[in-house]
């Protein structure tokens, strides 16, 4: 059954990519996917990227822009009528007027930029850049396609019973215990378990736990599917052989799990994900460091899941027509502005460590993969603080209202200098399995944490005709689309 569905999907993907390429002949199009787990900064990245391209910001490393070869970059009507447009103007307004970060990505959205550029030899060309912004949680759903309901239940329950998730999974596990899979199929039981499961997933995402691997992704971002049967299921404590009898709660859940795969996961994979040419994956390492070793280990697992979803590799003529692959993947550690520049290399090293396996795989298949520490919008300045005979490389910014550090609660107006802690020289020490690598906010005494990354407000004065300050946004662009502008 699954094999047939896969084959059907493949045929549809092939048809669509053939159609894409045919229209692409007249007007070359590049589809750039922007993703990342929630709060990694997807919306901010996309907004800053659009602003930088259309307002020709200062981007020395992005060669086409710095040498003046881009004649203009304009927003164009979004081509896909069934997909929401990326609300660039609203996000810019939020940055400018409220000096607040825009709302986060909860669904897939697209935006089209038409670039007109001169090749180095001087002839004028067009390139259409389609930005596809989608939640990284949805990528974690892709491995579900190869999973049965029994596998899914077993994996989810073992995660829920282990530390640190066991701290918040109590109510959900209680609901699982009172609703065995052999109970009669009943909507109110299903709603109860699913409700507890969703609440448990949401609790895992809080600041102190900062878990990343939370499939199914739509439970936290339901969008228009909220309350539908496809989202009203939960892992149950199935018997070891994984079978369910008809008309039981177990069978009902299994059917809904399959419905989730066919109604939610497959269409996303087919319509959006399989058509990408380039991909940037934003990773918020700093939040994981903030929370503790468990969060970092979880982030590593989640990234593994994301990486497994990518079909990377250089496109041959045939694969270009029928089954395109992602040729270039950039992993970006966002919020690099929360660190002094002297620590950026270490942040990059941690990220490189996280995606090491993916790098090997991509290399074998001829795809380009790179890592970068970036801040699409730079919210801080740097400073040097002298304390007890040593210089601390600090950053200066305005913490958001309600952020607290060192027993002090910030009001959202005061500017402070922060020394966030030293990242280790050797990233391996963070991945120490003994859980003693470092202490985070999830430890018993949050004040003893090794790192403290505050959330800062966006810089003042965005959009007054000035370019938005950034860190290495130009390098990211050069890697992602630079080679298509020659």
């Amino acid at each position, binding site marked *: 059954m699954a094999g047939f569905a896969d084959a059907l999907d493949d045929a549809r993907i092939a048809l669509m990519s053939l159609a894409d390429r045919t229209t692409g002949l007249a007007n070359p199009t590049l589809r750039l996917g922007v993703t990342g787990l929630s709060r990694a900064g997807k919306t901010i990245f996309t907004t800053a990227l659009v602003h930088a391209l259309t307002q020709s910001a200062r981007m*020395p*490393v992005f*060669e086409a822009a*710095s*040498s003046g070869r881009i004649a203009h970059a304009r927003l164009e009507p979004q081509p896909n009528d069934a997909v929401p447009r990326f609300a660039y103007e609203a996000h810019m307004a939020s940055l400018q007027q409220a000096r607040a970060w825009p709302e986060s990505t909860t669904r897939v959205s697209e935006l089209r930029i038409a670039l007109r550029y001169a090749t180095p030899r001087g002839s004028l060309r067009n390139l259409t850049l389609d930005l596809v912004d989608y939640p990284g949680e949805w990528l974690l759903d892709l491995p579900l396609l190869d999973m049965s309901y029994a596998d899914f239940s077993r994996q989810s329950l073992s995660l829920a019973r282990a530390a640190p998730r066991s701290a918040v999974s109590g109510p959900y596990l209680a609901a699982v215990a009172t609703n065995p899979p052999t109970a009669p199929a009943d909507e109110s039981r299903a709603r109860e378990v699913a409700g507890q499961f969703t609440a448990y997933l949401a609790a895992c995402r809080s600041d102190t736990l900062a878990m990343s691997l939370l499939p199914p992704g739509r439970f936290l971002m339901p969008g228009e599917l909220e309350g539908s049967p496809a989202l009203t299921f939960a892992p149950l404590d199935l018997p070891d052989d994984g079978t369910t009898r008809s008309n039981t709660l177990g069978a009902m859940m299994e059917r809904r799990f399959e419905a989730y795969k066919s109604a939610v996961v497959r269409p996303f994979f087919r319509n959006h994900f399989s058509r990408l040419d380039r991909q940037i994956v934003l990773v918020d390492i700093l939040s994981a460091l903030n929370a503790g070793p468990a969060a970092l280990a979880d982030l590593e697992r989640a990234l593994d899941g994301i990486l497994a979803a990518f079909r990377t590799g250089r496109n041959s003529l045939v694969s270009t027509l029928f089954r395109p692959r992602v040729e270039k993947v950039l992993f970006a550690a966002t919020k690099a502005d929360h660190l002094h*520049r*002297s620590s*950026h290399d270490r942040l990059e090293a941690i990220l490189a460590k996280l995606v090491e396996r993916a790098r090997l795989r991509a290399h074998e298949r001829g795809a380009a993969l790179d890592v970068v520490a970036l801040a699409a919008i730079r919210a801080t*300045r*740097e*400073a*040097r*603080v*002298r*304390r007890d005979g*040593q*210089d*601390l*490389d*600090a950053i*200066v910014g305005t913490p958001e209202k309600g952020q607290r*550090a*060192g027993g*002090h609660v910030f009001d959202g107006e*005061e*500017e*402070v*200098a*922060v*020394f*966030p*802690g*030293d990242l*280790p*020289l050797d990233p391996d020490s963070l991945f120490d399995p003994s859980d003693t690598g470092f202490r985070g906010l999830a430890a018993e005494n949050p004040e003893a*944490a*090794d*790192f*403290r990354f*505050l959330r800062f407000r966006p810089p003042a004065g965005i959009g007054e005709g000035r370019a938005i300050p950034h*860190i*290495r946004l130009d*390098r990211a662009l*050069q890697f992602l689309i630079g080679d298509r502008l020659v």
Partner: protein
Amino acid sequence: MSDESTTARNAHTADARTTRRPQVFRLDEEHITLAPPEPAEPEYAPLDAAALSPRKSGWPWGSIFWSALGGVVSLAFYVALSRLITDLFAQSEWLGYLGAGVALVLVLAALGLVVREVGGLYRLAHLDHIRDEAISALAEDDRAKAEKVTREMLKLTAENPGLARARVDLEGHLGSIIDGGDLVRLTERTLLPNLDSRARQMVSDAAKNVSVVTAISPRALLDLAFVLFTAVSLMRRLAQLYGGRPGALGMLRLFRHVLGHLAITGGMAAGDTLVQQLVGQGVAAKLSAKLGEGVVNGMLTARLGLAAIAVTRPLPFDALPAPRLADVATGLLRKAEEEEQKKPKDGART
């Protein structure tokens, strides 16, 4: 240098975590420097010429010989000069003073020459040094080295009026957060395209001149002399263009360098194949012998020029494409073909 020491200190304290906990400071506290701590002007150890040349094993008999010879010759020179001046004083006093004055001028001029030569050598060595730094900055993506390279390049191009705007841009970018490799590439892209195209033009012109002169010159010895002369002046001008300004000794060194480069690359670079094939498959053969010789000599000059560019350009070709033989020698072939096409018509008329 200051960056490295910072890194070392961080590495030291990373283990002793207790000393560097996360901290928050109010901006009105003491000892907070708000301006972003720009890395201080890098200090250089003075260039050690001995360290740059490959180390030789065993006793340096050669240099002992030359130093001793130099000592003997200068002693002889001194004796001859002092005797001459004594003789002049013996003849008459004013003649003696005149002689002493002229001798003094002679010595001063010799000193000046030596200083200039040493300066030329130093500048060439400095170009090599910058290039080595740039190569390692690119390989290691090292920001501190890249910044040093960029500052050196800014100094080197400071006298080039056409680059005023580019220099200001680049100086502005020095403060922002750019990785080492990217910074070197940015420097190359900002400062060198104009110089590169002029260098290319020089090589191409020299090659054309050589091919024309070879084609019309009556004697082989004359050709050879002209090729040599053109090659040397081409090298000098290329070195000047890229900021080298070599003296006579510097030219010798440069010449050795270029020949060495040619030997290593075998005079071949990727992309030569087009020209090679054209020549191999008979363009040269179809041409009259003299014209063919011209093309070959021109090509030799072009290759020498490319090698000279490679050894005098202060940065490696990374962001910009390296000129290929086809770029600088296509004019040659076209010219030869035109000549060839003209010929049969001439022949038909007579």
